[in-house]
């Protein structure tokens, strides 16, 4: 059992791959031995439900389409946001309802770790089999540094 589970959610559709890219960079930056597990997945995060339920802290990284500027970074605490039905509504993730519905199922079943955060970046183009845009790539680097600081440099509540 890892203390922290980081799930990078994505596909190979342009900026939709940002979750995978961020995960790769975090893995390289953090390295082994930090009780942090890195898992690349698609929208079917319930495939990882056992890993999720056995972790003390969950970090999800995904493209989030929220009518913002491409490259904008978002952070949501999943328990408070989803329970309150406030900021996260409907299918903000580029994967539609899949990820959030899956998270809601995990909350209902008591399987979501108390500390569960969704980090996201507003995507630009998401054409099949295309590269991630340079604009979003810059945000990925900032996001990686922010998550690194929160998990490794200055960990809080863990």
């Amino acid at each position, binding site marked *: 059992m890892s203390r922290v589970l980081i799930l990078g959610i994505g*596909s*190979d*559709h*342009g900026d*939709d791959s940002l979750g995978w890219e961020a995960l790769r960079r975090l893995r390289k930056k953090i390295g082994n031995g930090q009780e942090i597990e890195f*898992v*690349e*997945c*698609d*929208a*079917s995060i*319930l*495939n*990882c*439900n*056992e890993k999720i339920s056995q972790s003390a802290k969950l970090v999800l990284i995904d*493209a989030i389409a929220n009518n913002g500027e491409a490259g904008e970074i978002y952070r949501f605490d999943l328990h408070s946001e989803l329970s309150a039905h406030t900021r996260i509504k409907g*299918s903000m993730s*580029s*994967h*539609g*309802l*899949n990820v959030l*519905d*899956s998270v*809601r*199922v995990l*909350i*209902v*079943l008591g*399987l979501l770790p108390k500390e569960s955060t969704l980090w996201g970046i507003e*995507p630009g183009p*998401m054409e*099949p*089999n295309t590269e991630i845009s340079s604009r979003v790539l810059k945000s990925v680097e900032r996001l990686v540094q922010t998550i690194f600081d929160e998990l490794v440099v200055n960990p809080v509540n863990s």
Partner: protein
Amino acid sequence: MNKRELEIKVPVLARVEGEGSLELLIEGEELREAKLSIFEPPRLFEKFLEGRHYTEVPDLVARICGICPVAYQMSAVHALEGLFDTRISEWIRAMRRVYYCGEWIESHALHIHLLALPDFLGYQSAPEMAKDHPLAVKRGLRIQALGNDLIKLFGGRSVNPVGAEVGGFSGAPTKKEVNTLYSRLDQCIDESAELLEWLLTFSLPESNQDFPGVSLRHEYEYPMNEGRLASSDGLNIPVDAFENHFVERQVPHSTAFQCYRDDKAYLVGPLARCVLNSQHLNKQVKTILDAAKLKLNVGNSYHSLIARAMEILHAASEAKDLLRNYVKPNTTREKIITKAGVAIAATEAPRGTLWHRYEIDADGLVCKARIVPPTSQNQARIEADLRHALTTLGLYRPEEELRFQAEQIIRNYDPCISCATHFLDLRVNRQ
């Protein structure tokens, strides 16, 4: 004449499973058009595969679908091994079935518990259903997890697995790893039996449409990786004769092809498999089905819910049988001698028959690829089912009711994860 136009759309998705939309045109009491459009990503991959070495194909095609990567790998490796005259060992053959069992279990468990059951039990979403049926959903997630772990055993990981190769596997699990998983199979079998018994208590809607089911059929086992293509109306052909009987057509309203068999829409998937291969189903599955006195009918798409549960139990039982005396072999792959030619195979993906065709040159490079996935084969059938179901329900019904019925029909086919998990966004224009 009163005319109202209903446009029902799935939100735009950025997932490989694609996007879908449904447009209904109702004039008076007549349903003039029911157009289902599904974006089919395999078309992109076919071009993407050209110029690639055959050894890259299993890993590349595994990326086509996040839910059934094993199926794509298996159709590819069997096609290529057929061309290269590769004789695989009994161990490879058996472990490929275990690998496939894992995928059937995880895919079917996901569909039953998170996509189909909320519809049958009258909930708007899976989370709502989970509040009232937490034990059933937790049981479903346990079953799904075991399926994933079976895939991971041979694929290295359950998402985008990498263990399958042309000629065998890149490695083999240890006896200890197999034993750990084997010890969980009894619980999975018991829970799968409970699941099937529970679903058989549901009152499924009556439907008896006239269309054939198509699947692989094998002489002495439930079909996964081998067999001939058979149908409930008498077809019995080798898989390399597929193109003589099945034709894909482009339709103006969809970026996807629709596949027809001799000009007819048809059904592929677990229901067709169960009906066409009932003699090879596990004994416990047959006993439970007999006790419930349900006769599976390929013309009733609601029976696919039961068929999926039957296949979960069958697959868990078969995996246990195949792993009972597991021994790690000295070699996990056969030597490959490439040759130029056409490679064809079909295997049974969770959603139905998955047909692959590759043209390979003397260097082992892919010159051309063609992939016919289950979703494109079922697409015409879904449209016909929608016409039948909505007309039977009554086109005068409120739009919300029509939308829910349409969603339920589409989800029932499990066309792809992204389509099946999204609520249709109903837009109404009245004239």
